């Protein structure tokens, strides 16, 4: 059994729209090992949700997907998810059974017309057992483990009868119900208030120790990252711009975008007179984007004539620390090689 669980290699998700092609995800690669917790950070609209939806093949049918997503099951050969039929039986077995997802909005993630129990046991009955009674038993047990009071009664309740925090707990129970190897949590606590956020994060941490699954956190909340994950990928405009472990993200960030993100965290002790730090400008819409680094228009360290012409590749510059920025000579060298290579190929 390999240690590797998921290898994402150069995936691109392009949406052909009337205004042009929207490059929501533009060539990202990463790997997740068993039991590992990874974070995917970035501002709204940077493509992080689209990236995980590509992994699950939940993107709109008109989206064009490129690249490989290799999933390594506990037994058997790796499966290339990008080659599967998005409605076929293989991907349906993976969804929920191998890779489960928790969504941002607990209010809208459940159907208001069906009971919580119906919606949780449905997943169990697809992946684990056909027996109705056994499925309810598993569901009750899970609801108990995520800290719901009266789990038997909750099974017959409708989503509108639960609070936001309770609904998100039910969502977590549903995602864990089939004991997935990988849990993708897409902004799991964004819609919750702060005290409930803390409870839910603690719960997820406990459950991870218990179930031993890998978790991929999608968030723009650096607090969640600091608390929950081991390795972090920072995304900007559909690309990963920095990849490192959580400590060096906060103490040794390399990319100007990452440093700006860290600086924008409000610090306790600062006088309220001081304005909050922010990154000037906004994330551009990735349609018909000019060449060069995506962060160039907002970057303080931009090198004129280089950053606005060539897109920096992601290059490892320290152990387990990769960055895509021309401030670092290693990146300039790598870009030179690849362009030289490209030039060589042209002849």
């Amino acid at each position, binding site marked *: 059994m390999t240690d590797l669980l998921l290898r994402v290699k150069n995936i691109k998700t392009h949406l052909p729209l009337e205004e042009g092609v929207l490059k929501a995800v533009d060539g990202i690669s990463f790997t997740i090992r068993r039991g590992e917790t990874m974070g995917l950070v970035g501002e709204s609209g940077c493509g992080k949700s689209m990236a995980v939806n590509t992994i699950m093949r939940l993107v709109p049918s008109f989206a064009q997907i490129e690249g490989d997503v290799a999933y390594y099951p506990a037994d058997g050969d790796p499966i290339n998810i990008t080659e599967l039929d998005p*409605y076929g039986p293989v991907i349906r077995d993976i*969804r929920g059974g191998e890779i489960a997802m928790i969504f941002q909005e607990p209010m809208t993630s459940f159907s*208001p017309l069906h009971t919580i129990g119906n919606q949780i046991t449905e997943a169990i009955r697809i992946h684990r057992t056909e027996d109705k009674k056994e499925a309810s038993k598993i569901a009750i047990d899970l609801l108990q483990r995520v800290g719901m009071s009266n789990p038997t009664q909750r099974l017959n309740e409708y989503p509108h009868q639960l609070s936001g925090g309770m609904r998100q707990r039910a969502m977590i129970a549903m995602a864990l119900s089939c004991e997935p190897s990988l849990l993708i949590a897409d902004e799991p606590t964004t819609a919750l208030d702060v005290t409930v956020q803390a409870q839910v994060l603690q719960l997820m941490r406990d459950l991870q120790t218990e179930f031993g699954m890998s978790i991929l956190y999608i968030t723009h909340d650096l607090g969640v990252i600091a608390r929950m994950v081991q390795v972090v990928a920072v995304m900007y405009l559909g690309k990963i711009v920095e990849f490192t472990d959580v400590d060096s993200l906060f103490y040794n960030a390399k990319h100007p975008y990452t440093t700006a993100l860290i600086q924008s965290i409000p610090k306790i002790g600062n006088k309220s007179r001081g304005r909050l730090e922010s990154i000037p400008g906004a994330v551009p819409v990735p349609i018909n984007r000019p060449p060069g680094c995506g962060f160039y228009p907002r970057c303080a360290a931009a090198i004129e004539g280089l950053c606005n012409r060539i897109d920096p590749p992601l290059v490892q510059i320290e152990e387990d620390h990769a960055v895509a920025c021309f401030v670092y000579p290693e990146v300039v060298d790598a870009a030179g090689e690849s362009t030289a290579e490209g030039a060589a190929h042209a002849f």
Partner: protein
Amino acid sequence: MLSYFIRRLLYMGIVLFLVSILSFYIINLPPGSWIHNYALELEASGDIVDEEELKFLLHRYGLDRPLHEQYVHWIIPLVTEGDFGQSFEWGQPVWPLIEERLLLTMIVSLASIIFVYVVSVPIALYSAINQYSIGDYFFSFMGLIGLATPNFLIALVLMIIMLRVFGVTPGGLFSPEYLRAPWSLAKFWDMLTHLPVPVVVIGTAGTAGLIRILRAQLLDEFQKQYVITARAKGLRERFLIIKYPLRMAFNPIVSSIGSLLPQIVSGSAIVSIVLGLPTTGPLLLRALIAQDTYAAASMLLMLSVLTVVGVFLSDLLLMWLDPRIRYERGN
């Protein structure tokens, strides 16, 4: 729950009471009365009606009394004895006149509603799942034609086709031999064979409309997060579409079932005349033109009863379908 039922029944009573007053008032708004119309008709055919006779007739039918007295004179026996009064135009009691027609109206309407749903739900599902496909465009095109063509025109065309191709005598709901026969299984079967044409004609516009609404509703629901959640659980696409978005899309449609009935009744009057259907539509039209107050008011009241009951039933259906509404009403 019980208190909700009682409250609803009370509201229904109030609504019907107000409807009866309003319809009685509006029917009597045009100047003159049935007697005056009758006199005019006689004059047109050369007879001379003298003032004395007119006054005598007006008095005899109670038409010289103030409107509220006439109303009381009509409503009290109706409520206490179920007596709908006399029709001036037909010279006989109103109830036997409208009894069978009300029943046939209900049958035709129900059959039309069923036709509308049976045809439009699968088409809307197909169109929504295969949005912008050739099939979707085809059904949209057909639907718009159905919506835009006047019903009576479709009726005429269908009648010609039925006669030329199938040799079925068009028009009416019964073959001549059953027209005056008492109800029997054979008569019922005869009626069923006559139903398709009126049902298709009356239902076409509704079908076209419902396809558009349901298609838009479904497309809207497909985008919702709970559909993606269901898909992320590994559900089969066909199963999840029927279980989640279709059921959600049904809510606004179920809530409009009650109002379909008056729409079909008023919309089908012309069709009924063209097709010679023994429904209330043509009778109501004639009663209104002739200012046959009691007949017209009774028919309007009965149709209101059917509508109010229909709305109540669709509300109950909605409560059964949507736990949020059940919860709200239950408290």
